[in-house]
Structure formats: structure tokens, C-alpha cells
């Protein structure tokens, strides 16, 4: 088995009760491990070389890692940028909404899909890569677990029948990225363009990266963020976390970001 040899661990982080996430190197490959769950070996270009589940691992956690985390890491290694972001496609253009967990990415994206007849491209992780001078966005998850509020926004009364089952995303589509929107909580609703350090900080904060002591990857990420911000406008959307304000939020996003 390819992962029988012990990697040289370079970083470790406690990510849950009794669970540590660590990253190591084995020859030229990367090895990522969630203790008590799974160890995955990735090639330098993001190919999955080997997956070894721990016997008796929590199936739900394992599913999330294999559906979300590993694809995001693989996408990162493949040369693009993976962000904590939801994304939709509307009018042939992709719009990404960046924010940490709990910032309302999924709710906003799913509600926008409903309002603008768009497609949900990504629920939690959006991969951005440059192709022929165009930055394109795509999802890396094969399934999404929408929160009840997101289900309500996206599917209305039909959400009652969904329970907690995962939903399938709208195929593995991708689209030219038209805007990046950082989500923040604030008492009043506003949208403003951000540039320079503010924009760079927003993207760096939401960048999903392997915690590696690899200068080549680190420099590449920063260069890609610079190129991305030169090509794609970035905004910050401030709004209260109140469901009754959602219609106003959607309207301002449409007018200021999607159809300026």
C-alpha cells in the first residue's frame, strides 16, 4: 500500500474532539490525515494516489472530508485557488460569495438562484482557475447539505420533504467569474467595491490551502490572487443576519453586483 511508509509530518492542528488534522510529505507526494478518520495521499498536482479509511470511522465526517476537503485540497494543488465560497451562475456568469461558516453563503446563493433563475455552482467551496486569460469558477463538491433556511430559500415548501438528505449540485458546470463578494454581518445593508489590501485580505482569509511549508505553493497562491483581483472585481456585502431582510439584500446584490 502506498501510504504504509510514514510521512514526514510538517504541521498538525486539532480540528475536533480527539481529531487532529496533519499534513506531511512522502517522497514528492503530500499526505493529509484526520486522525481516527482517514489518511489520503495526494500527488503534487492534486491527484488522489491513495485513500485509507480508519476502521469504524464516523461515516458522516468521512463523507464530508471526501466530498469537501479532499477535492478542495486537490483543486488547490492542481494550480487554482479554492475558496470558502458559495457560487451561482446567472446569465452565463459566475458570482462567488466568500465567507466563513455561518456567514450565510448558502442561504444567499440559494435564494439568488431562485430569484434570478440561476444555478447553484458551489455550496461551500469554489475553485477559481485561469484559462485563456479568463478566470472561471466551478464547484468541487458532488453534493451539498443545505441548512433548513437555505432549503427554504431555494425550494420553498418542497424543502419539507428533503429532510437532511444531501442535494446534488447542478452538474460539474463552470462559468467565467464575474464578481467576488465577501460577506459580512452589519446592522445596515450595503455593497461596496474593495481593492488593494482590503481585497487581498478578503481572499487570503477565505483561501483553502494545505498548511505546508512549501514556498513555491505559497508564492503561487499570492501571485494567483493578485492576477484574480486584476481581472475580477471584488465587493463586500454587509447585511444583518435576518431572514426578513433577505429580499432587500438580494435586490442590492442584483443591482450593484450582478447588473451594475
Amino acid at each position, binding site marked *: 500500500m502506498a501510504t504504509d511508509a510514514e510521512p514526514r509530518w510538517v504541521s498538525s492542528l486539532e480540528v475536533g474532539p480527539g481529531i487532529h488534522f496533519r499534513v506531511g510529505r512522502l517522497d514528492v507526494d503530500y499526505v493529509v490525515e484526520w486522525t481516527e478518520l482517514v489518511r489520503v495521499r495526494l500527488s503534487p498536482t492534486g491527484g488522489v494516489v491513495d485513500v485509507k479509511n480508519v476502521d469504524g470511522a464516523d461515516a458522516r465526517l468521512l463523507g464530508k472530508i471526501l466530498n469537501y476537503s479532499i477535492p478542495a485540497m486537490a483543486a488547490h494543488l492542481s494550480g487554482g485557488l479554492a475558496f470558502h465560497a458559495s457560487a451561482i451562475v446567472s446569465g452565463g456568469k459566475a458570482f462567488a460569495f466568500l465567507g466563513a461558516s455561518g456567514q450565510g453563503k448558502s442561504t444567499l446563493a440559494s435564494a439568488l438562484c431562485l430569484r434570478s433563475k440561476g444555478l447553484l455552482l458551489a455550496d461551500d467551496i469554489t475553485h477559481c482557475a485561469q484559462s485563456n486569460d479568463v478566470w472561471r469558477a466551478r464547484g468541487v463538491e458532488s453534493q451539498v447539505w443545505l441548512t433548513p433556511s437555505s432549503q427554504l430559500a431555494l425550494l420553498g415548501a418542497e424543502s419539507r420533504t428533503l429532510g437532511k438528505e444531501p442535494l446534488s449540485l447542478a452538474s460539474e458546470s463552470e462559468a467565467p467569474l464575474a464578481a467576488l463578494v465577501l460577506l459580512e454581518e452589519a446592522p445596515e445593508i450595503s455593497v461596496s467595491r474593495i481593492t*488593494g*489590501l482590503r481585497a487581498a*485580505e478578503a481572499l*487570503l482569509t477565505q483561501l483553502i490551502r494545505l498548511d505546508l511549508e512549501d*514556498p513555491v505553493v*505559497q508564492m503561487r497562491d*499570492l501571485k494567483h490572487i493578485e492576477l484574480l*483581483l486584476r481581472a475580477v472585481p471584488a465587493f463586500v456585502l454587509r447585511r444583518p443576519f435576518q431572514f426578513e431582510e433577505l429580499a432587500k439584500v438580494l435586490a442590492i446584490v442584483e443591482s450593484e453586483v450582478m447588473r451594475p
Partner: protein
Amino acid sequence: MKQTRLKPGDDIHVREFDGELVLLDLRGGDYFGLDAIGKALWVGVSEGLSVHEVALRLVEEYDVAIDVLERDLDALRDKMLARGLLVEVVEGDR
């Protein structure tokens, strides 16, 4: 006579974002942002200028007393030294 001057750390990678700088410390992957003033200090130091010389350059652009400007630059320099973004090098007589 020996004297010290500042220079960017060897492990610091820099990229510009709309006139501001992001410094990447390759030793740990940490990022630091420099606004226009910070950028002026970074560029000046990279050119071999002292903090005083950077302040003289900046005072022509900003409506601020040179001693205030120099004090702010000193504080920024100290923070950057503490984080290893800038390092001091000792030079002998030429």
C-alpha cells in the same frame, strides 16, 4: 567605522495590490499588509535609504510634520524588525 542599515528579510516575498503591498513570510506562510506609507518604507529601505531619508521623501507628499512622520515610520520599522520582515545588516567602511 561600522554602521547598520535595514534590508528586507531573505524569506519575504512581496506582491503589489493597487499600490499597496502584501508581504508573504515564506518561513511560516504568514501574510502582512502594507498601506501606502508602509510601502514607501519598504521601497525606501530596499533602495538602501534610512528611515530619516524615507521620511524626507514622504514629507513632500503628505501634510504632516517630519518628526511625526519619522516617529510613525520608526514604530513601523520596529514592528517589521520584530517579525523578521526587515533585518539589520552591519556594514563596514567602504
